[in-house]
């Protein structure tokens, strides 16, 4: 038997070749040759709707849950526990749930919690900044660790950077507000 891979290093000579697992996270496939435009549009629409459905399946129950809890004292009580922590970033205590959802699930889960809380423009921007940096830590930490760099170190970095950027933005907003 010839060691085919050594004699013909096929994968190395074609950098644009698809990986062995040809499905990406969102189900888009890497075609070997460039597909024509209508195929690409169809692939894109299909992948987009599939992604949307997966996101909606998580965010709708969360949104409904938070909206219903808002009518009860439970959310206020739990929010009060986190108020001193979130207050550092200029956010209400209830926003802590949005961060938990964003860290463990994804940014859309965080959004599903934020919207019923009726935050002001600064608070939404602050959430967008901090959650944009640190979200989906479990899945993305896994992805980053497969590249050889330690995933949990980067996840920890993201949490620290998110906190730092939150403090920075609050400071900047304060300065802009005064000018």
């Amino acid at each position, binding site marked *: 038997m010839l060691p085919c891979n050594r004699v013909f290093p096929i994968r190395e000579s074609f950098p644009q070749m698809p990986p062995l697992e040809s499905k990406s*996270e969102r189900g888009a496939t890497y075609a070997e040759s460039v597909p024509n435009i209508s195929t690409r549009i169809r692939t*894109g629409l299909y*992948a*987009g709707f599939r992604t*949307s459905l997966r996101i909606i399946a998580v965010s709708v129950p969360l949104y409904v849950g938070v909206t*219903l809890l808002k009518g009860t004292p439970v959310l206020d009580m739990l929010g009060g526990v986190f108020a001193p922590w979130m207050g550092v970033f200029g956010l209400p205590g209830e926003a802590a749930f949005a961060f938990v959802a964003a860290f463990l699930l994804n940014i859309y889960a965080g959004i*599903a919690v934020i919207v019923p809380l009726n935050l002001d423009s600064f608070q939404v921007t602050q959430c967008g900044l901090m959650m*944009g940096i640190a979200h989906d830590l479990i899945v993305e930490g896994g992805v980053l660790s497969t590249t050889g760099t330690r995933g949990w170190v980067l996840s920890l970095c*993201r949490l620290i950077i998110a906190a730092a950027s939150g403090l920075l933005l609050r400071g900047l907003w304060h300065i802009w507000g005064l000018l």
Partner: protein
Amino acid sequence: MEALTSALGGAATLSFKLILIIVPLVTVFEVLRHLPIFRRAGNLVEPAMKGVGLTRDAAIPLFTGIFLGIAYGAGIIIRVAQQKGLPGRELFLMGLFLATCHSVVEDILVFVVIGGNGFVILGVRLGLAVLLTGLMARLWKTD
């Protein structure tokens, strides 16, 4: 019962907004990503990447992560990192940059839709990513 109906109505509105952002974005990406200009984009950004301690080998995974996000770009990021045999230092710097600044189009658009300021979010994230990665590249010298 009324509360449930209004909650479901709000959830439907939010879902509709999310679909309106995600579907066109994914479709546009799928159409554009085969264009040769994106394969050659590495030349243009090389000087900028040097400043944060990265070489052009890292261009494709870096820009995939910046525009698409880590989860969606996973296939490309993992594949290129392995094929090009990126050294540990570069992988860490790329990871640090992406940790701060990734999936900028989609993540920022969804927050703009619910009332946030997109320019502020983008500015702080990009600035912080360049600052942190540049700093780290100078601290962690190549041997």
